[in-house]
């Protein structure tokens, strides 16, 4: 639908989308120069909920910083927990018992599904369909209940610990997760019938918001945004961490580069996460959840450590520069949406505002994670 029309720079007006706008899902502002309904140029303005998490990382000990990770990407907090503990374990050479690693993978994948469910609902709501949000939240509620019972929190998890996890999972967790898998498969079928095959949805998403593979590379886009542009990149596969090379799962890749491809990638990722959960449940060994011997105070040797994990929105990287002290000397958080959203300014030129906002929704924004 986005015909190449000639936009004129002398007949534009400025439209402030945000900081308070229903489509930005948080406090994000996009300053758009509009020529009628077409976007002439756009500039994303962020930092409205910047909290300087990186400075906090320097002021706190490694253990004290753990809760901060849940406050970055509040929808897939578990992956952030995982990335951080992996980085510190790498720096301080802490061994992790196998069972703990299985529990981590289980919780991360459950959390990934819940994050994608929120995205699914919110994205369809961006397109004007309200009902899928309620369906998605209903299913997400089941995940939150399962995770709440074992982690103690519903959203901003702080569950992973250096060397293991905070709490062993009980039979309720195992049974609950086992019961959840068929339920979620059924729900995915419903979503497919209700939403995926909807003609209006297809018309609105197909061919909209093209992001070329080269553009992804120049901006460092990762996660579903990159995978929808034909890039077979998933940190879990490309750079297997934790136990991910022991599981059999596929990385959905689409070559269409449009919003519909991004939509499809995420929908299929949920199924793949279910597969991982199934295998993890079957393989999970008995044993301790914390190593027998672990330093009381974490003091990694001086050096520079990097760890990347696949969060729900893409590759989350954490760089710890240690000077041998109790606190990190420098702690850098590389958040995926920050890079993914960056290409919006360039990609949305010449788009209709409705398409641009659908495109923005397909990037899957979590503002606290961008602003850190």
């Amino acid at each position, binding site marked *: *639908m986005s015909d190449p029309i000639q936009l004129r720079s002398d007949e534009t007006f400025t439209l402030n989308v945000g900081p308070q706008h229903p489509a930005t899902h948080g406090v994000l502002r996009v300053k758009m120069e509009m020529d009628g*309904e077409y976007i002439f140029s756009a500039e994303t303005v962020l930092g409205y909920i910047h909290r300087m998490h990186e400075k906090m990382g320097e002021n706190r000990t490694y253990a004290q910083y753990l809760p901060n990770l849940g406050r970055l990407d509040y929808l897939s907090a578990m992956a952030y927990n995982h990335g951080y503990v992996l980085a510190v374990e790498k720096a301080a050479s802490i061994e992790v018992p196998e069972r703990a690693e299985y529990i981590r993978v289980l919780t991360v994948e459950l959390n990934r599904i819940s994050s994608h469910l929120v995205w699914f609902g919110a994205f369809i709501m961006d397109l004007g369909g309200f009902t899928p949000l309620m369906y998605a939240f209903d299913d997400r509620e089941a995940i939150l209940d399962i995770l709440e019972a074992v982690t103690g929190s519903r959203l901003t998890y702080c569950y992973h610990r250096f060397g293991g996890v905070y709490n062993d999972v009980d039979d309720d967790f195992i049974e609950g997760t086992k019961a959840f898998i068929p339920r979620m498969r059924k729900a995915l079928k419903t979503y497919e019938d209700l939403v995926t095959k*909807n003609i209006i*949805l297809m018309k609105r998403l197909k061919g909209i918001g093209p992001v070329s593979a080269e553009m992804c590379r120049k901006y460092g886009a990762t996660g579903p945004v990159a995978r929808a542009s034909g890039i077979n990149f998933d940190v879990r596969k490309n750079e297997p961490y934790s136990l991910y090379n022991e599981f059999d799962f596929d990385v959905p890749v689409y070559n269409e580069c449009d919003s519909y491809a991004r939509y499809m990638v995420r929908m299929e990722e949920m199924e793949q996460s279910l597969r991982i959960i199934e295998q993890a449940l079957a393989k999970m060994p008995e044993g301790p959840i914390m190593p027998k011997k672990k330093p009381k105070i974490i003091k990694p040797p001086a050096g520079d450590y990097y760890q990347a994990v696949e969060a729900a929105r893409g590759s989350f990287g954490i760089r710890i520069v240690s000077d041998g002290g109790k606190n990190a000397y420098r702690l850098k958080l590389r958040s995926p949406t920050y890079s993914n959203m960056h290409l919006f300014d360039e990609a949305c030129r010449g788009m*209709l505002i409705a398409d641009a906002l659908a495109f923005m929704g397909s990037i899957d924004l979590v503002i606290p994670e961008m602003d850190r």
Partner: protein
Amino acid sequence: MSLTLINVLFAVVAAIGFAALNAAYLVWCERKGAGFFQRRPGPMENGPWGLLQPPVDGIKLMTKQLVIPGGVDKALFMVAPVLAMFPAIMSFVTIPFSENIVAQNMNIGVLMIFAFASMGSMAILFAGWGSRNKYALMSSVRGVSQAIAYEVPMLITVITIVMITGSMDLRAIALDQSGGFWQWNILALTKSPLMPVSFLIFFVCTLAETNRAPFDLGEAESELVAGFHTEYSSMGFGLFFMGEYANIVIGSCLTTLLFLGGWGCPFGLFPGVWWFLLKIYLLIFTFIWIRWTFPRTTIYGLLNLSWKILIPFSLFNLLLTAGLLKVF
């Protein structure tokens, strides 16, 4: 003379009452319907099944401050909500609910209703222009182009019906279809084999004309915040809201009268007002159903649908019907 005046006054009061009651309780129905489609109970707090929700909402809206933002065009800003509600109520005057229940039957009823319906887009234009808000302005531009685009196929479809019946009197049109569902215009295949398509076109146009999802581009909340009524608070917003539901009722009434046999029973038995009400509420339920199922289209998708599909089809149907009428 004075008796006629009293009659008219009574009729107008009844029309306003019906419109307002319907608007209020349709909001409740919509919320209940949304709840039903979304696997949740909907409003439950006020009264049994939340039945007292509409009056409570009304009191809330009426007691809130009517904020008039700085820099707005006051005259347009104030007139717009009234203009949204007033044509809807006026249209009720000429709608026959059964053979005898009609406030003021006119022999040009169809024309009058469409004249008033066109005023609805003026409300959107005034509100958008007067609000001094870019979102509202964009929304009003959308709203007007949408109204123009969809009035054309709608009117062409209506002309087809008028040609079949030979009257612009809504009562006459409904009476013409009495006797059972095979007599209804939607199934009048002998007059034009494309009548069911005509009905679909008319229904889609009704959705678009009343700014209902999936054509609610005027108030596309994820793009334009709240569209033309972004700046309205209190009863200003309330009137727009009620106007929307009143328009839905009128759209359903018209669809029923023009295509579904008005107050006639599907099997030719006991015609009466209850059949009419049953039909319009079934249509309204369909409106609600569609709204809570489909995502929104884009403005260009919407205009393309009208100019490239609906108008050619309805024109073709018009010509076909005219030809068939001439031949037989």
